[in-house]
């Protein structure tokens, strides 16, 4: 009799041999970005937030679409703290200005501060962070210490101090707020960029490019940076929301936008005195602010999930 163990062979029809290593040709070509976009499109968080943001952009650019009442023209003290009436759905502020119109027109200031600050932070932070992460050495050391210094100044604290500067104290405008926020927020972007660049710079495809004769700097721009974009984009999207809150906080403290510019932060600051008697004056701009910020943060979250390398197909 044969041995106790036997030699089993599966029938070939049930276990057919596939050709080794064939290419899938059924779908359209799919880069990583296209793959991420496909995932993003389906998420409810993304759909809701982008619709909201689109709406906000439209309102910011064309406030006249939503509110025919010119915001500051019609302020009559007689209407002070009045309730909602026809044509004035939110009622009136302490000075008798139409709340609805102020809220609608305030979108522009908040969004522009947010967008401009993010752009500045991107330019400064990504450049410095990429250079520090890629070249290392003393560039990196200097940047790390410089960043630490700014990190040691929390946003509000730093803003309080910086706005003491005579130049800034006298001329408050959208640009001064943008300057203050950018100055205090660039280190975080630089740190994220540096981390991402460090991760990518040792990849074989970068070495392969150098072996081709691509110069060190060209390799940074053409190969390293495009692959380091994911965390930068996520942070930039989140920052849009966070900077809008920051502007509101600064305006609330009196060190942000000047009262002449209509913004939600200013409105909330002005509404403090009426909070016991008529809280709506504060709540409407606060709600507008919160919804705006929420949509950007939701977008940032959705983008981060879509770009998450762990969910990528291999």
């Amino acid at each position: 009799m044969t041995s106790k163990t036997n030699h089993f062979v599966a029938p070939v029809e049930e276990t057919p041999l596939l050709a080794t290593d064939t290419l899938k040709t059924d779908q359209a070509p799919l880069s990583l970005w296209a793959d991420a976009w496909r995932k993003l499109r389906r998420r409810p968080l993304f759909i809701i937030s982008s619709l909201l943001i689109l709406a906000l952009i439209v309102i910011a650019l064309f406030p006249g679409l939503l509110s025919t009442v010119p915001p500051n023209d019609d302020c009559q003290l007689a209407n002070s703290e009045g309730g909602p009436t026809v044509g004035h759905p939110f009622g009136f502020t302490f000075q008798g200005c139409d709340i609805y119109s102020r809220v609608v027109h305030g979108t522009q200031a908040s969004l522009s501060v947010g967008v401009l600050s993010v752009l500045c932070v991107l330019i400064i932070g990504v450049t410095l962070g990429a250079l520090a992460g890629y070249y290392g050495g003393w560039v990196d050391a200097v940047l790390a210490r410089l960043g630490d210094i700014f990190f040691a100044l929390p946003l509000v604290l730093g803003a309080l101090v910086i706005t003491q500067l005579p130049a800034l104290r006298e001329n408050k405008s959208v640009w001064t707020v943008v300057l203050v926020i950018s100055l205090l927020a660039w280190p975080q972007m630089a740190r994220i960029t540096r981390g991402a660049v460090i991760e990518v710079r040792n990849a074989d495809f970068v070495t392969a490019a150098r072996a081709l004769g691509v110069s060190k700097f060209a390799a940074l721009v053409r190969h390293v940076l495009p692959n380091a974009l994911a965390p930068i984009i996520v942070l930039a999207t989140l920052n849009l929301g966070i900077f809008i809150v920051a502007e509101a906080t600064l305006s609330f403290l009196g060190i942000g936008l000047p009262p002449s510019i209509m913004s939600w932060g200013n409105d909330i600051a002005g509404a403090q005195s009426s909070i016991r008697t008529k809280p709506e004056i504060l709540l409407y701009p606060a709600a507008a602010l919160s919804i705006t910020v929420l949509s950007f943060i939701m977008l940032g979250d959705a983008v981060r999930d879509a770009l998450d390398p762990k969910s990528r197909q291999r």
Partner: protein
Amino acid sequence: MTTPDIHINEADRTEPTPLLEIRDLAITFKTGSGEVHAVRNAHLTIMPGETVAIVGESGSGKSTTALAAIGLLPNNGAVSGGQILLDGEDIAHATEKRMIELRGNTIGMVPQDPMSNLNPVWKIGYQVKETLRANGRPSGPDDIARVLAEAGLPDAHRRAKQYPHEFSGGMRQRALIAIGLSCQPRLLIADEPTSALDVTVQRQILDHLEGMTSELGTAVLLITHDLGLAAERADKVVVMYQGNVVESGPSLELLRNPQHPYTKRLVESAPSLASRRIQVAKELGVEASDLLAPAAEAVAADHVLKIQDLRKVYKLRQGLGKSTDFAAVDGVTFDVTRGTTTAIVGESGSGKSTVAKMVLQLEKPTEGTILFDGVDTAALKPAELFKFRRRVQPIFQDPYGSLDPMYNIFRTIEEPLRVHKIGNKASREKKVRELLDQVALPQSSMQRFPNELSGGQRQRVAIARALALDPEVIICDEAVSALDVLVQAQVLNLLADLQSNLGLTYLFITHDLAVVRQIADHVCVMEKGRLVETGSTDDVFESPQQDYTKALLNAIPGAKLMLPPEVA
């Protein structure tokens, strides 16, 4: 023809019931893109004290089958059919409580990657202690030390107070083996226990493991991708492919007489077995020309590369201003003949990759000269260096890292032509198409991105990119080490064809001596930055001079297998 009874181990005459029996097992995963049938029909039997190996490539379902036996499938996986009988009890759908009882003292596991499988924030001794305690064993410091010492860790009391990152790779694996066997389980699942380690260390650890398990009478379920290793260490081999068991039986019989087409392919392609066959053939004086790469046609001693006394010293900062010198490459001299393949073999830390980087002019040598076609590369001016790059090109190891994920295949292969301003848009496209043909990739792959291709396909794109500038020398830095066995064979064949068609010279860096046997004409063996031995492949394999070379040869899995006289 009767097959001799080569069943080695004992015990199943008195205990006919198998320890583990898997019948018609099916495992399904729920993923974002639907259900994946990782295992369709798996079956195997392990008798008490027996060692059974499951062999397969990635995606075969071998690891999944083993994990199911210990109840460690990931959350989205479930047994969708069949039985897992442990001593007659079906544990395929056992409660978690029951599995916790079984784990540790009845079924143990030794996982694959020693670094990621030990918790970095707890001491080694603590991680052993909690195992002993959870399974009701004495867990005092002496017990812990004894467990570690049995696994081959010297100075166990001191080692128990250290953290995983203070251990070397081999020591960490021993610690994991210690943990796996600490409660003397009846079945040990070893999932690729040594594939993350250096070759010489692998043999030591596997020998030790074999000693421990035979002493304890533990049955072993060994998962591996290496057929030679499986045949050497196990009594029975189970071959899995695409979630099915395609063949199983006594190990030597499977090697000598594979029936299923897949097993036949594996046996033909596995480097360690192929290497062994060549060895045996040579010993018998058989002309095994079809087993070897086509012989190099270079006649004159045309040395396209001459390396002399090459040294590379790195300064390691010790903090607070001090630094020590570390010689990654310490005096290496060898020549590369045009049209041949020269392999540099060594384990991790041998300096072989650093040599490659210096030849590619990506690192500057500290001392020594590299003569390319008679010209000292260190003396090249930037413009000449740029032209030099066209003649020497690399192919790297990690197919997932060597192609820019943002570039599609066309741009990747075209980039060398663009950088060197060769031709115009139309001629470059034509050249890319030619290259794709040369590496046997369909034209439609031009628009695709690296993340859509498999490992072997990406490596072929890397080869196409390397060929774009019509180089003379190609440096393959572990170019096939990350590929599955069959894909590896395909790529090696492609490289061999290209060499004979285009007259290429290869400098082949690898840690795998078995692969070297199949493709190289000359071998340089490196250890810790020094060149230990060099010579033609035949010489080095048949009569190795140095102890280190002998140890490397010895470590090839399957080296101890006895193949019968009728080989070719």
